[in-house]
């Protein structure tokens, strides 16, 4: 290819990716650098940030141990419960469902994920609140049942909010599965149960890992569900971050917590990708 056309080609390529590259630099890379810088700074007397280089913010992390504890327990537990509910649904959609209705059934799972989490969480606040189920229970004589603002309510909200996100990647990996492998397994005399545990489950592990990793990561940063269904009694790291940034205005400490959160996210992603990669030899991540 002549040099002139090559240069022109490169210019066009650069022009095509330039806006997105600029956006990623200014609104992703730069903010992460700023957050890292803030995490090593000090709180200004009037709130906000004051330049410094200190590990003091990270040393104070234990003062927010309760938020970390709640998050680190409820996020994986929530993801696990999601998985237990999601797997049979994904399996049914991919393997058992009548192909004619499959698209509609899959859409019915996807649609809630794209509708406002705020509204969906509000729905449970409404149902569990004093004028909802507790009111009905009091009619049959069960007085003063409290459902809202408990860890159980938060867990319920988590499963409700993130179930679709868990079903989707598992469904995709099961749908890609080569049916002939299942037939071969049956032809070779394997019982359905051993076919499931020997063939289906291992081959769907990349989808399972993707789902578990995605849901856990997003749950680690969850704010709305513990805020609305935990009512300040069951709070997550996200709630601590909102408090530190928007109420007490201790930005350096908040940044240190956020940096720690990102570090945890990166570790989870690396572990999940390594497992998925080892099992399937691919790194397909499906999100939409």
């Amino acid at each position, binding site marked *: 290819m002549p040099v002139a056309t090559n240069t022109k080609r490169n210019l066009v390529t650069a022009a095509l*990716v330039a806006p997105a590259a600029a956006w990623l630099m200014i609104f992703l890379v730069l903010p992460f650098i700023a957050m890292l810088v803030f995490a090593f700074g000090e709180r200004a007397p009037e709130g906000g940030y004051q330049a410094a280089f200190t590990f003091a913010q990270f040393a104070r992390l234990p003062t927010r141990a309760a938020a970390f504890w709640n998050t680190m327990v409820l996020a994986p537990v929530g993801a696990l419960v999601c998985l237990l509910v999601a797997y049979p649904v994904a399996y049914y959609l991919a393997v058992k469902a009548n192909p004619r209705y499959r698209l509609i059934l899959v859409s019915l799972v996807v649609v809630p994920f794209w509708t406002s989490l705020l509204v969906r969480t509000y729905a449970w606040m409404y149902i569990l*609140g004093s004028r909802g189920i507790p009111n009905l229970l009091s009619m049959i004589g069960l007085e003063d049942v409290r459902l809202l603002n408990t860890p159980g309510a938060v867990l319920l909200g988590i499963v409700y909010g993130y179930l679709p996100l868990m079903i989707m990647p598992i469904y995709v990996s099961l749908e890609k599965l080569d049916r002939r492998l299942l037939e071969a397994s049956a032809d070779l005399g394997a019982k359905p149960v051993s076919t499931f545990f020997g063939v289906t489950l291992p081959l769907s592990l990349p989808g399972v890992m993707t789902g578990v990793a995605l849901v856990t990561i997003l749950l680690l940063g969850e704010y709305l569900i513990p805020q609305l269904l935990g009512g300040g009694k069951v709070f997550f790291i996200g709630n601590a971050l909102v408090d530190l940034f928007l109420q007490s205005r201790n930005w350096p400490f908040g940044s240190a917590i956020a940096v720690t959160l990102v570090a945890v996210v990166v570790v989870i992603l690396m572990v999940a990708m390594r497992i998925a990669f080892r099992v399937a030899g691919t790194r397909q991540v499906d999100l*939409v």
Partner: protein
Amino acid sequence: MRAFISSVYIFLYAPIALVVLFSFNAGRSASEFTGFSTAWYGKALGNTFLVSALQNSLMIAFTSATLAAIFGTMAALGMERLAPRNRAIFDALFAAAIVVPGVVIGIATLVALVAVFSFVNPALATIWPGEQPPQLGLGYGSIIAAHGLFSMALVTMIVKARIASLGRDIVEASSDLYATPLTTFRLIVLPQILPSILAGFLLAFTFSFDDFIIAFFVAGSKTTLPIYVFASIRRGVTPEINAIATLVLVASLLLILTARILMRDKKPKSGE
């Protein structure tokens, strides 16, 4: 198994249905339906704070989704032509934009913008010829920028998947017949990727319209619809919120269903 699957679907939809049902309740009760009424919708739409929050949300969602659709499509087309190394960097950054929790994106954007403003505003003040130099601050711009980040990553991912499934031969045939690259793009490539661009736009719009947590950090003094709804919920649960929630649900439902119809292929694709 059937029973389990059905109950999961009921679990997914019953709470939403209940919210919708009680938005038409004449009384204030959340457990007793005392008669059909659309009064709460009238009350919600007569609320000027709510209507202006809705207008803000629509404007922000439209702007960020449009920018994301244009720049995201350009990026998807350009990334094809990049060296594998540079493409991998882009892929990693876009993946980060999608996977990093919103709370962290919100904080990082807030911190960076405030830091930048603290340099830029005094500089502007010294070089500004007039009396009142403009003050940069948080607001519509920062929300659009932060939403645009996620949305651009989303559009790029969807359009890239579509481009990957396109036949190369027809593009080659077009250039063999002496069409310029631009003509080939306009007549061959664009019509084929247009549905995925539109789907990306709609998903981006839905994301921005529904996002609470990112906007909560970077909105400054501005109010979006989710921020308004959140504040109202904290003041107490009323059927008026149910009415707003129902309207939000209907809007998202229409957007997501249109997006899914546009994304539907002849051959089933991954990435449902």
